[in-house]
């Protein structure tokens, strides 16, 4: 069996979940380690360089959020995906604020999990080398050099700000981008609370890139958190 897809650390206090995830990830070509609590997870992450860490939010002792903060301090480049049983928005916001790249509600399909792991890794690579090249996701392609966006080959007319928003989201395709992060990336660091303003831009963008703006395929809303450009 080859572990060509990368290495993942599973941090969860439930042995059944560790066992299942480790088995499933190994089957899918990931090298999977496991830790049963936050301390052990931090310790392992210091000694090995993982591509992604799957971190349960609800753990006894040092909880997932606290562990995430600590991991982010010691290893800024590591991809962190938080797992939660609760479908609440507070958990997700808290996870992203603590430095997680993404979150997933239990239970989930492995296809979804591996897609998220890929997106996180791509996001980190993109951040590392500041990819400014041509991006294509689904029918949408974006050419930063010529500031051109096409959908199925047909050029779309975007305003400069719409282009910037789309570029930022596509560069982080697959992971949720928080309102604040998007606002300060596009409008500057002094912005961050103009969520309503952003909503208007997203509505305009959807009208241009989506087949049915009411049911977006590409640009999805993450309730109370932000937006996500879905990675294909």
């Amino acid at each position: 069996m080859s572990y060509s897809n990368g290495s993942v650390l599973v941090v969860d206090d439930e042995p059944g979940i560790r066992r299942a995830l480790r088995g499933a990830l190994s089957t899918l070509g990931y090298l999977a380690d496991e830790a049963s609590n936050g301390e052990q997870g931090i310790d392992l992450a210091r000694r090995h360089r993982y591509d992604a860490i799957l971190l349960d939010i609800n753990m006894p002792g040092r909880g997932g959020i606290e562990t995430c903060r600590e991991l982010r301090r010691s290893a800024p480049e590591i991809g962190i995906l938080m797992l939660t049983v609760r479908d609440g928005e507070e958990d997700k916001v808290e996870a992203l604020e603590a430095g997680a790249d993404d979150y997933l509600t239990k239970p989930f399909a492995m296809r979804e999990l591996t897609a998220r792991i890929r997106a996180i890794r791509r996001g980190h690579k993109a951040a590392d080398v500041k990819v400014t090249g041509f991006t294509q996701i689904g029918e949408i392609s974006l050419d930063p050099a010529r500031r051109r966006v096409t959908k199925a080959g047909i050029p779309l007319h975007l305003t400069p700000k719409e282009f910037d928003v789309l570029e930022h989201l596509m560069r982080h395709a697959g992971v949720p981008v928080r309102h604040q992060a998007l606002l300060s990336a596009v409008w500057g660091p002094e912005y961050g609370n103009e969520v309503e303003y952003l909503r208007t831009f997203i509505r305009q963008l959807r009208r241009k890139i989506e087949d049915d703006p009411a049911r977006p395929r590409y640009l999805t809303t993450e309730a109370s958190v932000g937006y996500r450009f879905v990675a294909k």
Partner: protein
Amino acid sequence: MSPATDRALRLPVSKGWRASLPGRWIAPWPIRSASLALGTAAVGMVTLVAFRFQLNLATAAFLHLIIVVLLARHSGFAIASSVSVVAVLSQTYFLVPPALSFVVADWHNVIALATFGYCALTVSRLSSEATRQMRVAERRRQETEGLYEISRFVLLMDRHREPGPQIAGMIQRVFNCECVAIFDAVSGSIASSGGNVLDLEERTRDAYVQGRDEFDSRRRAWFRVLRSGNRLAGSLALRGGDIGGAVANALASLVAVALERARSFENESRMEAARQSEQLRTAVLDALAHDVKTPLTAIRAASSGLLEAHVLDPNHEELVALIDDESARLDEITNRLLRLARLDAKDVNVKRGWVRIEHIMGKMAAPRLRTECEDPDLAVHADEQLLLMALSQLIDNAMKYSTPGTEITLSAVRKGNQALISVHNFGSPIDPSELERVFDRFHRGGNVANRISGTGLGLSITRKIAIAHGGRVWASSDADRGTTFFLSLPLKGEV
């Protein structure tokens, strides 16, 4: 003086009662006769001694004066003045020359007698007044002490027991009443203490109904209406004992306060209990969610992992897909149940915004579903998430109970000031007797209970959501035209 006591003093008071009002205290008749006799005897004795030993008029007059003063202090002005008259007469007869006749020869003696008479009357008046004042003061002190004791009791009362009987007993003890009755209008209960209360209880209730403060001279009982703010809260009856109108008023205020306090404490503890049970429910639901989701996560990770790896032969893959699908379904059911249980637990918290009906209808996806909305601008001021939940419950329901292969129609029309959304399906009709009850919690149609899976919560939640929006739900059903569920929501304006 407070308005309450002021009002009390102006109340009509019967003669019998006045006899025992503070300051107008008069000794009972036998004692009065005895003091009159004793005083007369003492005056007579002094006069005879003075006559026998030839004492002068002044000496006898001073001795008489002492007797009159003593009488005035103990028996009141009336007795003292009567005895004064006796003293003047006996002095005239025995001591003023010529003796043994009522003739006064010397005009000096006329002045002496008149002076004595005037002094005796004045002194006895002053003395009896002083005594009366003392009695009033004493009486006020006792009343104040009693009221203080009652108010202290109201503050320290056992909050876990009924307030009425406690206060009634306390008032009866402190004011030494024959009996006390308290009618609590809010709970409709009557509490009493003391003997012979039956007719008093009846009258107490009447006093509340008539809203009248009064003194019943036949029963020798005060009736007072209890007021809490501007509202009548009940009534109080006090019989016997040494109680004046002002005290009855003060007691009525205290009892009203006590009942009010007890009630607010009760509300507080009820709210606290509701809050605790809500907390408990949330905790239980969270624990349940965690306990069910954890094994589900493991199962889904394993099944979906196996499928994703594409390593199975078709037969095995079919079986694993079954595990995967069913665990996904179990997860969906769990989510729905938890959501319903949370929604069921509390009053629905509606976060309103403008929602276009066509927009939410567009979000409903199901095979065999046809949607028709005549007016794309039809919008309601509602909670989009809740509305989606209500609609999907109706559509789920239609899917479950429809004849396989038939179309399900979701439509919306404007009807007056309402948006009327309906979900129609063909299938076995709902019995008319059950049309209302399908919206009850855990009710499931008798003819489907064993055939079709469901929790019996869905439609009850739909109704709850409708009511939270000021709308309603109902259903109609017959074998030919199929079954239609209606959800109507008030429009209250348009986008």
